């Protein structure tokens, strides 16, 4: 996957960090100090459909040529997360009990085109 930067308009991962102190949540969330709410943004032209994910090979090159040529079979290709990991939180609930939980699929590690 690619990280967004500069003037790239292609599908990439846009990093975004939420500091719990900035939103006033540091009093009830003990750990961590913030949340990496990265997201996917950018264009997915037809010939990039399915990339990254398909091994870069002769077959990929041929497949891309066919897709680019058959514009008529234009199909929407979307920039979506392809790798995600859990967010571990240690926080106080409303009874001041301490809860530790792992929320699956909360942090986007890489993006790609469907």
């Amino acid at each position: 996957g690619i990280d967004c930067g500069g003037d790239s308009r292609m599908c990439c991962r846009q990093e975004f960090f939420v500091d719990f102190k900035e939103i006033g949540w540091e009093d009830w969330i003990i750990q961590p100090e913030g949340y990496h709410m990265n997201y996917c943004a950018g264009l997915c032209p037809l010939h990039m459909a399915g990339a990254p994910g398909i091994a870069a090979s002769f077959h990929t090159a041929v497949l891309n040529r066919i897709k680019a040529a058959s514009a008529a079979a234009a199909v929407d290709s979307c920039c979506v997360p392809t790798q995600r990991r859990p967010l571990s939180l240690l926080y106080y609930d409303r009874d001041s009990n301490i809860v530790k939980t792992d929320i699956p699929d909360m942090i986007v590690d890489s993006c790609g085109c469907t």
Partner: protein
Amino acid sequence: AAKGAWCPACGVAALAPGTQRDALLALAKQSILAKLRLPARPSVPQPPARGALLTALRRMRAPRSDAAATPGMLRDGPSRFASLLTLLLVLCPGSSTPRSVHLHFRFSQEVAGSTEILQATLYLFWAAPGPGAQPVTVRLLQPDPAGPNLTVASETRLEVQRSGWNTLDVGAAVRSLFGQEIPRLTVELEVPEDWGSPLPSDHSDSHWPFVVARARARTPHRVHRR
């Protein structure tokens, strides 16, 4: 996002930078609260005394010696369950007499309503005043369906040889609580006459009782088709 509707990333991209950041911060709050099944962020907590908290966290991590212990109760290995919660319940002291005291441990509605308890352990510290075995009684109380009083759900007699921590499995008692309106575990401690109160006198003392529970998010029944 549904066909034709803005997906969060696309919608945000069209906003001015300042507005964009506010929109993403709002999205982050909404996402975390939704995943934790909280209607809103909890109000400002009253955290336990620092000493008590550090001791509790240390006890949670230490492998337990008693038979009911499971090795590394809180080891953070890969979780076999979709979403595993570990809860550290702080004590709300209740009524007391010279020889006994009621301890209350309250579960929040969100946790009680959306999880199933895998395991729950009560940690008690005994400061034995002198040599020799001292008889101590621990009663788990439950609301009496027929009235406002409490009835004894289970009673455990211990022989305290020396000062130190003891653990007691309260998993069954906690599971039976989760169906009730106010999920609160009540424990009665009774000690010999000459011991005085079973609880430390100073609230900042690091030997306050606590409960550690492990729960699993109750996920809707999933059928996997091949």
